[in-house]
């Protein structure tokens, strides 16, 4: 009995000293420059906690930055276009399993791209304050983004660049960054067999559908609609103004006119792209969806089972460029001021996560996540 | 000093008449044994004398003072020892002196004296679980004595011991009693024990508990268990008690 107690004390002592060592180690890194602590939370929480001072700032998709700013809780510190001009953001992606098991999947994808093109053109016209559609657009924006203040809707629209084209060089840059930031599971990356970032980007993104859409953008709907209306289970992110083109196309009937019935997939709208990838695409409850390009890049590697390729998705069109903002409380003037403070973000592996790391890298700062 | 007087004491538990008109006396320095069938209220008498229960009628007097509330001038020795298991032998004996607020030196002196008296030298720092039944009861007796009581109340203190140890402990108890010489009220269901120990044997009857007969045991000490005189008294007591036991069994 006494012996075992002695042994126990030795074990406890050893464990304790390892803890102390671990602590000292982490303290050492923080002495040089305390890392900025990224903490996952929902957009609602970000606004609430910025107000109470629990967080010094957040990086989030519109409309949350616009809401926080119009409420006077904080200010824009860095627009994501300042971190990386014209960076790709949300995209339209399809599930490979759905693609293989559906007869006319290519035709459906073409129409999805066209509807996207129509929506983007509508938004870009209506964005002008003198446009006759402006008020309607503001109403759609407030509905989709869960906003009550037209000023916030205007502000959030101004920060987002709506697009439909795909962006292979931008995707390649994202893949490189994700690799450099240690987000890939390298064992899985090796299993995937991609030679390098651009090889992976080329396998991920397809231009054909957007090309077809551009060629047919002035065609009569009745000429190019699908004969048999098809049902598509669609996934999207909650209150994300980046994905406004989807909402416009759905509300204004662009999909329906092209013969596509949109139904909202199980679990949608999602809190972030990681959920959409794992709960939707991976388990085949989503056929097509819009989400940030980084979750697509990460999950097609990390959570993929390469013998069935269950997390394999393809990108057919863009949704938007830029459109995320680092919002900070009013006493913060630079990213450096955030050192040692807590910053909200929508979760690991989201576009906001990657963008924040890129911004920190420029300034030589550390980010713990 | 240490004269306990019971004057027509009555006690009821709900509707159960535990004691009815119980009267007897423990004279100063006297050793009185209380004998009776189970359920006759022997233990109740002790608890009343200790002030752990209050009587419903009649009086209990210790040196002429009515016993009200817990009687701090008595020492209680329990059948199952009731030692504090988290206290060592020494600490158990010091419980009373400590409760009185005596300082450490006095406590030490008292515990040393009674450890010597009951012959537990070398076991001061043992916990109760490390002791045999006989040793535990030595601690129980020492603890009761350490409080310097006028009256010792013993509730079948040797009932849980084997016959050998029991005889030994009876001798020990008499040795200590002769040295300290305070009054003892000793509950037992063994006629042998009562006759061997007591100056007086009070036989009680059950349902309700009453004093049936009181025997004076005028035998010289040290007593011999098998002496003729002892046998004669034992016989009388047994007869008196035997009828009671039969009655009690019939009731059941």
């Amino acid at each position, binding site marked *: 009995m006494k012996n075992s107690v002695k042994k126990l004390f030795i074990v406890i002592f050893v464990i304790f000293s390892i803890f102390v060592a671990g602590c000292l180690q982490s303290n050492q890194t923080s002495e040089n420059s305390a890392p900025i602590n990224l903490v996952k939370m929902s957009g609602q929480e970000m606004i609430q906690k910025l107000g109470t001072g629990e967080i010094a700032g957040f990086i989030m998709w519109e409309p949350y930055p616009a809401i926080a700013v119009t409420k006077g809780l904080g200010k824009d510190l860095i627009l994501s276009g300042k971190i990386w001009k014209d960076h790709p953001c949300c995209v339209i992606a399809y599930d490979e399993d759905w693609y293989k098991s559906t007869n006319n999947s290519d035709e459906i994808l073409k129409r999805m791209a066209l509807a996207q093109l129509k929506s983007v053109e509508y938004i870009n016209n209506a964005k002008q304050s003198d446009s006759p559609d402006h008020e309607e657009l503001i109403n759609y924006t407030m509905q989709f983004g869960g906003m009550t203040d037209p000023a916030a809707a205007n502000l959030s629209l101004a920060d987002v660049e709506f697009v439909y084209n795909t962006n292979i060089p931008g995707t390649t840059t994202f893949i490189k960054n994700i690799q450099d930031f*240690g987000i890939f599971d390298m064992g899985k990356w090796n299993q995937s067999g991609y030679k390098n970032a651009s090889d992976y980007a080329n396998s991920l993104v397809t231009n054909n559908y957007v090309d077809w859409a551009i060629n047919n953008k002035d065609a009569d709907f009745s000429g190019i609609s699908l004969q048999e209306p098809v049902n598509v289970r669609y996934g999207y992110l909650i209150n994300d103004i980046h994905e406004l083109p989807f909402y416009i196309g759905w509300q204004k009937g662009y999909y329906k006119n092209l013969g596509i019935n949109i139904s909202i997939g199980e679990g949608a709208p999602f809190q972030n792209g990681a959920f959409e990838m794992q709960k939707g695409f991976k388990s085949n409850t989503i056929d097509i969806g819009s989400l940030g390009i980084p979750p697509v890049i990460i999950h097609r590697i990390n959570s993929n089972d390469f013998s069935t390729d269950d997390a394999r998705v393809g990108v057919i069109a863009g949704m938007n460029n830029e459109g995320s903002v680092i919002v900070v409380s009013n006493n913060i003037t630079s990213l450096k001021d955030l050192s040692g403070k807590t910053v909200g973000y929508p979760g690991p592996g989201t576009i906001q996560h990657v963008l924040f790391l890129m911004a920190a890298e420029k300034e030589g700062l550390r980010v713990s996540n | 000093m240490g004269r306990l007087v019971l004057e027509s004491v009555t006690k009821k538990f709900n509707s159960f008449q535990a004691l009815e008109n119980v009267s007897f006396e423990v004279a100063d320095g006297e050793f009185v044994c209380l004998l009776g069938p189970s359920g006759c209220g022997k233990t109740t008498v002790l608890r009343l004398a200790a002030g*752990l229960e209050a009587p419903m009628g009649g009086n209990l007097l210790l040196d002429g003072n009515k016993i009200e509330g817990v009687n701090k001038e008595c020492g209680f020795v329990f059948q199952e020892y009731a030692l504090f298991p988290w206290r060592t032998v020494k600490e158990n004996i010091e419980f009373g002196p400590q409760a009185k607020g005596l300082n450490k030196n006095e406590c030490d002196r008292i515990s040393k004296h009674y450890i010597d008296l009951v012959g537990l030298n070398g076991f001061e720092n043992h916990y109760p679980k490390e002791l045999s039944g006989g040793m535990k009861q030595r601690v129980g007796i020492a*603890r009761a004595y350490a409080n310097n009581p006028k009256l010792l109340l013993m509730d079948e203190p040797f009932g849980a011991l084997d016959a050998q140890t029991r005889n030994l402990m009876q001798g020990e108890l008499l040795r200590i009693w002769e040295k300290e010489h305070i009054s003892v009220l000793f509950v037992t269901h063994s006629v042998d024990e009562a006759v061997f120990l007591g100056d007086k044997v009070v036989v009680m009857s059950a349902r309700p508990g009453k004093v049936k007969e009181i025997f004076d045991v005028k035998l010289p000490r040290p007593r011999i268990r098998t002496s003729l005189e002892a046998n004669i008294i034992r016989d009388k007591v047994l007869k008196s008690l035997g009828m009671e036991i039969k009655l009690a069994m019939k009731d059941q």
Partner: protein
Amino acid sequence: MKIGEKKKEVVINLLSLVGFVLLWQIILILTREGIFSIPFIRLRDIPTPVETWHALIGSMFTRIYGPSLTYGIYNHVFASLERVIEGGIIAFIIGVPVGIGVGYSRIIGNIFNPIIEIVRNMPPMAWIPIAIFIFVSGGSIFIVFIGVVFPIILNTIQGVRSTDERLLDAARTLGASESKIVTKVIIPSAFPSIMTGLRIGLGVGWMAIVAAEMVIRSPVGLGYFIWNMGDLGRYSEMIAGMIVIGVIGYIMNISILLLQRRFIKWED
């Protein structure tokens, strides 16, 4: 003879662990070869023991990739333990006096019992939403507190109430006042129960902290770690984190048990 049997038991225990790990590996190999499957469960997503081991070693210490600093499991374990210990201490300081009061006095019991009986049936997880809103910081410590305090209170009450009546009588006849009876008889007698309450409570608290960390987000903590790894699709790190949680909980339980045996020498 006795030592031999002890050794035998240890060998059987180790063999069972090894057997479980082997079974895990075999099932996954069969699954990945397409021989074995269970409907509605994606067994293929579960990492093998070997992958899990590599993930455990790989994520043990803090890793730095450019601007990104990922805390090691050590930091997460330490942060979680700190919260459990802080919550445990607060629960102990509050729970023991309440338990003694309720166990000892019928009046105090009647005052506290209705609250205790209702609140103790609310699982710690049910407190998470309100903890998010009302606590500026330390919400997860509060969740631990809720998990720990009721086992301590209930075991203390039980310990106080099961104090041997004869010991109370003995103390009374030895001249102890009521306050001395509480401090010198009731508390020591209830002490093993209080320790048991603490042990059970910390077990509950350890489970609660992981759940609390998943919801009340902070940069470090094991709950946060496994949730983050899940978000990134790094399932082997996730499973490694789960195993660490289990092992730490086990060590905690055993440590308190042995400390209890060490410091309560008088108990049978």
